[in-house]
């Protein structure tokens, strides 16, 4: 009897310990560019994800899974589709991740989401804006960011609203964009929207994103006598272009950028005064009127020395979307997680710092509420900053946008 007892007690203890360890970690695989030309965006995405996971785990992890902690596995795509695909295979088959997120570069996102689809692993895309990503008919893909047809639509609505508000007429538009998937996607839609809006397109100019001198392009903009210039740029070329536009004193009523390089934390520092009055479309801005947003940004800034950007916020929120879905799925079965993701309707709680009311995916996996804001770069006495101005309901109190830009 006593022998039996002696054996039974540790055995029982072992079961108890095993019981508390029953909460298996949830593994989230993230494929992002950590080296190569897009490393700066990849780094932001990594920081934002890590901050969100820390918060979620500190708050007790996934309760329905017995307090399971979220665990991030990062893989470097180098912005190359080949590497992204190989990493997706590895994360799914070897790391046995429960969900995937990524990849920022659309060219990497297309083939990697196809891999996830084949294995039935849910794939949350925080940012990669190409329409095609959710138009492929994939069941497992969910995108937080707005798609490019919405970005372009909002840029044109903004332009229309500004003309009405300030009584300035815009007729001629110039399109200048990086010659890649992203730029080409935007330009194609701009053309249609311009036609519909009755604008005259006076310049349609792609440029190589490896350009070392953009003054010839700026010359063309100047000569086109456009009223409004619309841009899609990565960081290095955004800085170069903005400086060169200022150098050549190109007079425009407005410059409307498309996030990306223009929203990069290094952009304002590097372009300085040249960036004043620039309009940029983004998913999120630091002055958004949402509880928790300011605190999140302060925390992020203290940790990583930069402000949160739209891209970082999408990555941050993606973690909370996953947390919410896992909580409801109460299972690590990919099919159940997928189902829970599809039924997402996340409107409050910590982490919901986006500008719109709730995150909800339509049948294609697109976040149907994703909305965008326009900001203007200006100095209101505290140095250059990005100020939300559109939609009017979100405009920073007391700020009047500058439109058209003053003559140089």
């Amino acid at each position, binding site marked *: 009897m006593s022998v039996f007892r002696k054996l039974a007690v540790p055995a029982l203890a072992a079961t108890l310990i095993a019981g508390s360890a029953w909460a298996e970690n949830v593994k989230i695989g993230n494929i992002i560019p950590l080296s190569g030309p897009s490393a700066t965006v*990849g780094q932001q995405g990594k920081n934002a994800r890590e901050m969100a996971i820390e918060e979620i785990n500190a708050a007790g992890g996934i309760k329905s899974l017995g307090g399971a902690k979220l665990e991030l596995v990062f893989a470097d795509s180098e912005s190359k589709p080949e590497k992204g695909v190989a990493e997706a295979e590895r994360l799914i088959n070897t790391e046995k991740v429960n969900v995937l997120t990524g990849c920022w570069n659309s060219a990497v996102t297309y083939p990697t989401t196809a891999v996830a689809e084949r294995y039935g692993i849910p794939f949350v895309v925080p940012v990669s804006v190409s329409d095609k990503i959710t138009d492929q008919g994939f069941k497992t893909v969910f995108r937080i960011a707005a798609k490019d047809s919405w970005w372009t639509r909002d840029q044109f609505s903004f332009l229309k609203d500004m003309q009405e508000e300030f009584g300035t007429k815009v007729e001629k538009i110039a399109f200048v964009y990086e010659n890649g998937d992203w730029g080409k996607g935007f330009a194609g839609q701009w053309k249609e929207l311009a036609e519909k809006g009755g604008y005259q397109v006076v310049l349609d*100019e*792609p440029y190589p994103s490896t350009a070392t*001198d953009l003054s010839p392009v700026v010359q063309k903009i100047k*000569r086109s006598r456009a009223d409004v210039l619309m841009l899609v740029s990565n960081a290095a070329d955004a800085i170069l272009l903005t400086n060169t536009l200022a150098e050549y004193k190109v007079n425009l009523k407005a410059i409307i950028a498309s996030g990306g390089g223009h929203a990069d934390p290094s952009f304002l520092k590097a372009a300085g005064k040249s960036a004043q009055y620039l309009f940029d479309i983004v998913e999120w801005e630091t002055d958004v009127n949402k509880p928790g947003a300011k605190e999140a940004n302060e925390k992020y800034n203290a940790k990583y020395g930069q402000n949160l950007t739209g891209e970082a916020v999408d990555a941050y929120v993606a973690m909370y979307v996953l947390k919410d879905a896992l909580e409801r799925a109460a299972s690590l079965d990919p099919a159940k997680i997928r189902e829970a993701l599809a039924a997402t309707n996340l409107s409050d709680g910590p982490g919901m710092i986006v500008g719109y009311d709730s995150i909800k995916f339509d049948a294609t996996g697109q976040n149907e509420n994703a909305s965008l804001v326009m900001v203007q770069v200006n100095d209101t006495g505290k140095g250059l900053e990005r100020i939300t101005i559109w939609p009017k309901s979100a405009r920073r109190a007391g700020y009047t946008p500058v439109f058209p830009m003053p003559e140089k």
Partner: protein
Amino acid sequence: MLYIIEDTINGILMGSIYGLTAMGLTIIFGVLKVINFAHGSMLMVGMYVTYWAVTLTGINPYLAIVIVAPVMFFFGYYLQDIVIKPIFIAEKNVREPITVIIVTTGIWYILDNLTLLIFGPQYRSLADNPWRSKMLEFGDLFISVPKLYGCIIAIVTAAAIYWFFQKTSMGRAIRATSMDREAASLQGINQYKIYNLAFGIGSATAGIAAVTLVPFNNVFPTVGVLFDIKGFIIVVLGGLGSIGGALVGGIIVGLIESVGPQFMTATWTEAIVYGLFLVVLFVKPSGLFGQKHDW
């Protein structure tokens, strides 16, 4: 019409800076007979040295040459001495040791990614930089001041290097080695020492080019790649090993890039550059100013 003049001027200015970025490449090739694939990365290192020299000491960005050029000279000198020389020794009998190309590519990967590891992926540019966006204005004609300075520095550098190779005994020794290794070593010239010197000078030239670029460009780990392929094209156009040729090659590329977009979209000028490059190679393989035997 005015635009064409403006673009032509911009093309010449920017082109001579391109020529300066490629000058080190042509010097190294002239002596070592090796394409240095790490040249863009050396330019990038030069840009970081310039950036930090200016940021930490507050020195005028152009005066930073006095810091950057020597630092880069020793950087190149010892890079060749420690990493590349052993391979030359191992491959003594090969005229154009292809293995060295692989080694320079290895150096490229290491330098770019070491920079990423140490300094992070951020884009940096000089704070409160008085030269950024500085323009000379003649009515409607605009000329960029930092590019003008870059052009002047490029010409002065080319002249100085030319003078060095023609008039100094060290320069002559380098030239002798470039023309005939065996004969030079028979005369008591230490071939490997000469290689170190040539690499050092090439690297210092990249440093000078970096100084001209930093006032109006961004500094980031992969910035060298943007100038890499351009550099190869320029030196072959001008004739591998020819200093003046590099300058002219650079100006040709600069003009195509600058004037070309007025007649087509900017992305097509790249194709024009490659096309012209191939045509020149086919018609006159030694480049515009290259001599039959490489120097």
